[in-house]
């Protein structure tokens, strides 16, 4: 899976789970300040990402470092490179 595919899949999660318009889903968009998620929404996001990518990220400390949508793309790409994301 490449970055483009990951970007599309993550954006799908935001579109479906949070009904955020696609034009707002830019790599530099801040998840909290601009997209409006709060700490409870992040729990829902993690669940949705786990389901979408079939990975376990709930206890991964790197989730706490996420600030922008681009950070999520990179995080998933890292998981992919580490072999955690099933093909």
């Amino acid at each position, binding site marked *: 899976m490449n970055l483009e595919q990951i970007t599309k899949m993550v954006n799908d999660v935001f579109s479906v*789970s*949070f*009904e955020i318009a696609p034009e707002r889903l830019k790599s530099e968009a801040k998840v*909290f*300040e601009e997209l*409006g*998620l*709060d700490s*409870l*929404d992040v729990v*829902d996001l993690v669940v949705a990402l786990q389901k979408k990518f079939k990975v376990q990220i709930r206890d991964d400390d790197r989730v706490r470092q996420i600030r922008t949508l681009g950070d999520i793309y990179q995080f998933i790409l890292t998981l992919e490179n580490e072999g955690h994301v099933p093909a």
Partner: protein
Amino acid sequence: MFLIVTPPVIVLRPCMGRRQTLRVIRILICWYGLIIVRGLTFPFVRLIYTDDEAGQDCGACVYVCNHRSSSDGFLMALLNREVVQVVNNWPFKIPLMGWVARIAGYLSIRTMPFEEFSKKSSELLAQGVSIIAFPEGSRSVDKTLQQFNGAIFRVAQAARVPIIPLCLSGNQTIPAKGSVVLTPGTIRVRKLPALTWESYQDFSAFKLKNRVREILQAEVNRWESA
């Protein structure tokens, strides 16, 4: 507030149950707020309160309010009913007033985990006590509302209670941030139509908080661009 609340409670407490005592305390806090917002501001500050559903009582509900000034909490007295406010931790640190807020059961959102907040809020709603929340968390610096925290919306969804948006405008300088000086002006408080549980039951918490934010933002824009 301490002087208004304490004597009646000391006198009445032996012949009232805990629930009734709390009710009296909350009503007395409301009267104290009315004295402040109606009495002490007159005639320099004009206060306009409109209720879109006057005469309709939807029972225990969640009031969601935009946050403009330190006077916001006092303005909630205009609702004139038994309520508990969701506040940051600092009001509890105010001598005497903080003590009264604590015994009235005000909810400190910063110091309790969501599970505890949800449990206490649900208990209050089940007792018929409405809850007032300022989900921006801190005052908006201009007329654009900050992002909402969704905790109170999740509580409303679980308890299946109506959500009533309350829009405040004009008090951002009464007093201004960092000041205690009341400048003359007009404060508007509008109680907007309730969102019933039936109308939002299919919404996610995220969608619900943003829907209410949009309603309040539209009202602020309407007033402040006029």
